[in-house]
């Protein structure tokens, strides 16, 4: 399962950051995942609990911000948010848009200590 290796990456980066900050325990982990990142939020939560065992992140809450797909519409000359990641059309002018601006994010944003 792909999310498990992603979860281990998160735990590794976060553990190092926690150590550098002198934090012994982490209560929450904030991540951003894009609609085109290929990561499923529920699967990531499940995997995170496993990966965090025995680390300063054990029992930490994984707080996921889901990032929608944003494309550039050449007609509107603007970045537009797609209501549906399965339809790459500008919601205002309905022109097909393929230039992805956001939605591929897979980012560890911050940690919280208790």
């Amino acid at each position, binding site marked *: 399962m792909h999310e498990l290796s992603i979860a281990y990456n*998160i735990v590794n980066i976060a553990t190092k*950051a926690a150590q550098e900050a002198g*934090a012994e325990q982490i209560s929450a982990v904030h991540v951003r995942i894009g609609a085109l990142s290929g990561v499923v939020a529920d699967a990531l939560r499940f995997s995170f609990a496993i990966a965090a065992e025995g680390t300063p992140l054990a029992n930490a809450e994984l707080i996921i911000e889901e990032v929608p797909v944003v494309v550039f519409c050449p007609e509107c000359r603007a970045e537009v948010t797609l209501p549906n990641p399965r339809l790459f059309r500008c919601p205002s002018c309905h022109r097909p848009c393929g230039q992805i601006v956001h939605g591929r994010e897979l980012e560890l944003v911050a940690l919280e200590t208790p």
Partner: protein
Amino acid sequence: MSYETKRLIEIRQGVLSKNDQLAAELRSRFHAAGVTVVNLLSSPGAGKTSLLEATMRAMLAECRVAALVGDLATDNDARRLARSGGLVRQIQTGDMCHLEADIVARHLADWDLNQIDLLFIENVGNLVCPAGYDLGEAARVVLLSTTEGEDKPLKYPATFATADAILLTKMDLAGPVGFDRAMAEENIRAVNPLAPIIATSARSETGLQEWMAWLREQMQARHKGTKTIA
């Protein structure tokens, strides 16, 4: 501020930043050596190996072609591809669901990149995981075979949306399996309005010329890029 105060530790780092960094290093090595790298993605059994064998055989007439082949345990694919006469190396992926940049770097460590013009990386048969991992490629190509459902692009938008080209494969079987090409193209267009769609068959060599023309374009774009920088 007391040490008991709840603290926020900012990180703002890509979860795959280590892979992204390695991929960027690979990309500049490929660029410096003049190698065009194509990452091939598909579900298992979509005909990647057959198409690659036909492509390598044909492209070898005009340039130096190599392939890194991700395969679960056997070296069947690599042996098949070696018949084309190109430089082929297998990556034993075991239970991995995707290739990563460090695996690619390790497997071409002893290759002289200056002796290669076109390098294919056949990724693990999987339409989900490989999409998140940059391998330093110049182009990412996704295959959709006529024996899969026409709705695959809608089920795996992340993979199809980020493709630079999409190949329909096994077109010789389109009739027998009742493949609805118009519907498949409509579904591809829904998630990827820009990438060229090329209908191919390794068996009947349908579309091979068009696919090769696209590959040549990628190689020329590389060379132009080099000149501009130099």
